């Protein structure tokens, strides 16, 4: 047995997608300070998303929403042992460069922040840090993967506490994947054109029957039942934004959503953890919203 001294290859697609694989079956929680990050880790979160305001507060406050203050991200990194993610604006590669320099574990190029570029997303291949991006349909998901995203999440409608948009996005993505599986090879060219997605990725999805990267759910998850619903619809993990720290009892809600995510196929467990939780976040009816965040991104 010989030992080869080397530091290996960093930033490969396999190590970037691999971290997303490690988060599967888990809950990623939005936190705005070290105390919340501690509560999230204690509750069994697989990662935290460090941001200055949760989406429901961004929605309430209005104005331009930007990358968080590095100091706040570093305080959270110093508090927890689990991965720390942070958000950059769509197309704002300088914010992403800063987040990579801060050693965050994943960057969410997120429609929750105000977009910086109305045409282009970040070219994510050039980064060592992996990216997650939101999608509302398969074409959008494949465009993001084509740009180098290593994890896709449904956009849902962040900050509403309403699961309806996330369900629509998951069903839309999975229906389109099933359509590709049914198509013959000649039909995939036209389908790639209709999806506005790169042909090689369309062919890959048609053959595999799934995205080449993990598909997570975000946007509107507020109860253990919401988590069980989206996992049964094919999501491989969940992001919970406002749903935990805008509920009556964040510690219990966080633990309950973690347990429901693992045992999503066991309704008796989901029933037990849902019992006596107190009020979930109040939420919004999405039909009456003035600003639909899920329409951001191209």
């Amino acid at each position, binding site marked *: 047995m010989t030992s*080869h001294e080397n530091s290996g290859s*960093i930033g490969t697609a396999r190590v970037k997608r691999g971290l997303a694989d*490690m988060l*599967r079956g888990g809950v990623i929680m939005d936190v705005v300070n070290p105390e919340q990050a501690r509560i999230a880790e204690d509750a069994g979160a*697989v990662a935290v998303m460090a941001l200055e305001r949760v989406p429901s507060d961004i929605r309430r406050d209005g104005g331009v929403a930007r990358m968080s203050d590095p100091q706040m991200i570093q305080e959270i990194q110093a508090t927890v*042992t689990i991965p720390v993610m942070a958000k950059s604006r769509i197309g704002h590669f300088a914010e992403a460069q800063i987040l990579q320099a801060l050693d965050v574990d994943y960057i969410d190029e997120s429609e929750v922040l105000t977009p910086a570029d109305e045409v282009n997303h970040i070219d994510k291949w050039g980064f060592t840090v992996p990216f997650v991006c939101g999608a509302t349909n398969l074409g959008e998901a494949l465009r993001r993967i084509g740009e180098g995203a290593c994890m896709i999440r449904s956009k849902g409608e962040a900050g509403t506490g309403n699961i309806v948009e996330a369900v629509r996005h998951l069903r839309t993505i999975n229906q389109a994947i099933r359509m590709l599986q049914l198509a013959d090879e000649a039909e995939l060219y036209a389908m790639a054109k209709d999806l506005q997605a790169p042909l090689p990725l369309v062919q890959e999805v048609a053959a595999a029957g799934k995205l080449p990267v993990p598909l997570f759910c975000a946007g509107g998850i507020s109860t253990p039942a919401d988590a069980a619903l989206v996992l049964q619809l094919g999501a491989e993990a969940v992001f919970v934004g406002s749903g935990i720290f805008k509920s009556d009892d964040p510690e219990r809600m966080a633990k309950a959503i973690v347990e429901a995510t*693992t*045992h999503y196929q066991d309704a008796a467990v989901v029933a037990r953890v849902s019992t006596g939780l107190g009020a979930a976040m109040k939420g919004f009816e999405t039909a009456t919203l003035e600003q639909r965040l899920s329409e951001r991104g191209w």
Partner: protein
Amino acid sequence: MPRVGVLALQGDVREHTASLQRLGIEPLLVKTPEQLALVDALVLPGGESTAIAHLLITSGLREPLQERLNSGMPAFGTCAGLIALSSEVLDGRADQWSFHALDVSVRRNGYGRQVASFETPVELSTGDLVPGVFIRAPRIERFGDSVEVLATHDHGDGAHPVLVRQGAVWGCSFHPELTSNTVIHEIFVKAL
């Protein structure tokens, strides 16, 4: 043939399942004490070690799994699974616990955060060369006399073990399950 289970609370359960299936084994997914009672050997997957530790308690699996490991059940842990099987966790949470089934001290994220995650070929003591995918990997910083080192990696500061065995319990810092190479799974399964 012994019945092999994969601990399925969180993490890359699907990849371990696929690796075992390539060897002709249909593993049982273990989320409950009842399912644990049905298996003769257990694979502990990669994932987040703190989340898996939390879910082992809330799922009622910590005590029965500790008893099975104490009574010699074969087990194979990768990354977070290695941390769970170890006897000491460095840089973990203050209340981080482990099963003490493998006499090693592991440092969480001992090779750095995600931007330092890396791939490198790893040579086993059998002579096999396998792809090593290290993701926020734990580093084995100490191992007991009864621990057999089956592979090491030198990350520029001396060779550290990355695949170890103590009796029926095996631990790996990296993720053979993220590749199509099944050499390490095969070694574990053949020893059952």
